[in-house]
Structures are given as structure tokens and as C-alpha cells.
């Protein structure tokens, strides 16, 4: 199976481990992710102002580019998923015909068809299937208690994203169980990490992130998995700055955990880019 793939800005630099593990695990599972040629940044956050058409041009251009090559676009980054999907919905809203016409006419790229934006987790569940993934696990994550942290961008706004149960999404938990691990129930799986407030109000973002980490830890999590480079950064850096080593819960991208279970070589897992080195912990657990 070949699928069109949109990496986005952060996966080309600070989150190369999310990108590389995504591509390599897909390969192991029989899926080739074909990178969308000459893509541009989606904008990283969705602009909601009703007259703010300029903010829509970036993501709509990505959709137009993709429409020339396929009818489905896969994302790995939760923010790209959120922005592209909301741009798609805004374009398609019945009251927005004039706006759609103005943006589409502004672009050089022709909108050939309505591209569906999907997340790699949806590909794993719906296109590949848990059974097929389970059959390829070479390093089962036995006795590993994992909290799946979805954050905001995967599930809200609920009527547009329609990703999973918006209050209690389970896709990543199902993946953890498929890989032999033990999904941890915790209340804060869709609470905000503080997001981009880390740029100018770090203490506020850290407060949000620590609440998520503490909640997961109180429910017994030994490891947290994320889908978003900003969640990943916030959860790691807040702990690094504010917690004693003994209390730290390592944080991995879900693709890193998947890669570990599928037996990717350690050089492809990209642990050196994690802010909290998970290698010691994973060795202790017999996973490395």
C-alpha cells in the first residue's frame, strides 16, 4: 500500500525521531509513505477569525497539492492533522462557498478533488489492522504500563475532527495493548499541555504539563506516549526542569514505541533526540 504523506515543519528538524520512526514502522507493516512534493507549512495552529482568509492559504495549498496526487493525506503530527482537517472543514462548510472560491482562485495549484486528511494512527487501526500489527511484534512490551496522551489537537473541536471518542479516545491505548503493553487509564489524556504558551509564558505551560504527568504517574504509568512534537517537548522539558530523576516518567512518541516493538534498530528509534533519555529505563525493562 502506498499513501501520500505530509511531514510538516517540525518533523523535518526538532521531531525527526517522530518522522523517521513513522516512515520505518510503516515500511515494516507494508505501507510506503510517499512524501508530498514541495509541501509548505500548514501554519501550526488554526486561525478562527471569520475574515482571516490569509491564515487559510497555507493549509489549503497543502490540500490542493495533495489533491493532484491522491485522495488521502497522512499526517504524523497532531498539529498538522488538526490544522489541515479544520481547513478542509472550513472549505467545505455550506456557508463558505464564496470564501472557498476566493482562496482556491488565489492559489496557483488547482484543487483536483476533496482530499481526506487522516492520522497515521487511523492508518494503523483501519488500513493495517491490529491483528496484522500484532503478528509483526518481535519485542512485546510485557509488563510495561503506558499512558497514552492525546492532548487537544487530536480530538478537538470534536465535530470537525471526529477522530475517536473526544473525551476518552482509545486508539493509542489499543495500539499499546496490541504491542503487548498495559494501557493505563487516566483522566488527563486530553488535557492541554500548555502548547505554544511555552514561548512567552513558560511557567503557565509547565503547570499544565506537570498536571498531565502527575495524573498519569498517579495511575501507575511508567511511560507516556504522545502524537505531537509540542506535547512531547512540554511534557519532557517540564519534568527535566522541575523533577528529581527518581520521579521522572519517560515520554516517547507513539511511533518510537511502535518501532521498539517491531524491532527497528536502535539507531532508527532516535532516542538521542529525546530530552529525557529513556534508554536506561527501557534496558531496565528488558526492552533494549
Amino acid at each position, binding site marked *: 500500500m502506498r499513501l501520500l504523506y505530509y511531514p*510538516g*515543519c*517540525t518533523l523535518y*528538524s*526538532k*521531531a525527526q525521531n517522530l518522522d523517521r520512526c513513522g516512515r520505518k514502522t510503516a515500511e515494516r507493516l507494508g505501507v510506503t509513505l510517499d512524501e508530498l512534493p514541495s509541501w509548505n*507549512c500548514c*501554519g*501550526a*495552529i*488554526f*486561525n*478562527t*477569525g*471569520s*475574515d*482571516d482568509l490569509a*491564515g487559510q492559504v497555507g493549509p489549503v495549498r497543502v490540500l490542493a497539492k495533495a489533491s493532484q496526487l491522491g485522495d488521502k493525506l497522512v499526517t504524523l*503530527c497532531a*498539529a498538522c492533522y488538526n490544522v489541515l482537517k479544520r481547513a478542509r472543514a472550513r472549505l467545505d462548510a455550506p456557508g463558505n462557498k464564496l470564501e472557498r472560491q476566493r482562496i482556491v482562485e488565489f492559489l496557483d495549484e488547482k484543487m483536483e478533488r476533496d482530499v481526506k486528511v487522516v492520522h497515521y494512527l487511523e492508518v494503523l487501526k483501519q488500513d493495517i489492522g491490529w491483528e496484522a500489527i500484532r503478528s509483526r511484534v518481535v519485542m512485546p512490551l510485557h509488563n510495561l504500563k503506558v499512558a497514552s496522551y492525546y492532548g*487537544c489537537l487530536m480530538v*478537538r*473541536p*470534536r465535530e470537525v475532527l471526529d477522530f475517536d471518542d*473526544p473525551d476518552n479516545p482509545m486508539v493509542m491505548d489499543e495500539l499499546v495493548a496490541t504491542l503487548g503493553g498495559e494501557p493505563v487509564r487516566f483522566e488527563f489524556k486530553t*488535557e*492541554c499541555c*500548555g*502548547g*505554544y*504558551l*511555552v*514561548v*512567552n*509564558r*513558560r511557567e*503557565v*505551560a509547565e*503547570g*499544565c504539563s506537570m*498536571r498531565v504527568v502527575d495524573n498519569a504517574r498517579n495511575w501507575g504509568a511508567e511511560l507516556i506516549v504522545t502524537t505531537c*512534537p*509540542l506535547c512531547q*517537548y512540554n511534557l519532557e*522539558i517540564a519534568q527535566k526542569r522541575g523533577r528529581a530523576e527518581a520521579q521522572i516518567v519517560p515520554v516517547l512518541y507513539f511511533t518510537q514505541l511502535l518501532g521498539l516493538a517491531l524491532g527497528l534498530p536502535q539507531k532508527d528509534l532516535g532516542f538521542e533526540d529525546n*530530552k529525557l533519555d529513556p534508554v536506561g529505563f527501557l534496558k531496565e525493562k528488558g526492552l533494549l
Partner: protein
Amino acid sequence: MNRTPEEMVREIEILSGQRIADCYQCGCCSAGCPIGTAMEPPPSKAIRLLQLGRVEELLESEGIWLCASCLVCGTRCPRGVDYARIAEACRLLVLRTKRSVVDPDVVVPADLEDVPQQAFIASFRKFSV
């Protein structure tokens, strides 16, 4: 600007696509906001200020700049009011007077070196002219 408070509230309604009068002040939004006590005014109080025509007070407040767009407030609102969009409309009114709250030229001290691009782009799009 020289607009009446009523005109400004109307502009916020158009920019946000929300009706200010729809809010009946149950406070669900403020209770669920992850920024919590740091946000002043919190969502329900901010909407109350608009209902009372105290627009300038809200535009001068810090609260509208402390939103991370997590959308919990609007998701939980029993009246379907999306405060994140109202806050964005308020920010747009301020930003369109050419006043940035986050200045990309001064915001990058060494401890932000590792911050993902995504955070900078999002922050500048929400908080800078």
C-alpha cells in the same frame, strides 16, 4: 477606533461567529480551563464583560493572551458558545492596531533553543502582528 461598545461587541460577534448573549454564565468553561487561575478574566467572566459592554476592559486584560486554543471551554459549553473564538476575535482587534504581545525579535533567549518550530509559528500567529 472611536467605536461604541455595542459596535465593538458586534464586531467581536462577527469575527468569532459566536453570539455573546447565548452565554448564561454557568461557568463550565472557566472550571475546565487548564490555564485555570492564571487566566484573568477566565472565559465566563470575559464573556460577562462583553455582555455588560465593558469591551475595553477585556481588550486590555491579560486573559485573552493566555489561551492555548485547547478548546475545552467550547467543547463543554452547554450553550454551544466557543470562547476560544471570542478570545481570538478580541486578540485580532488588538493586533490590528499594530500592537504585538509576543515580539519575534526579542522572544528567543537561549533556553528556547530546543522549542519546536511549531510552537514559535503558533505563538507568532496568535500573538504577533
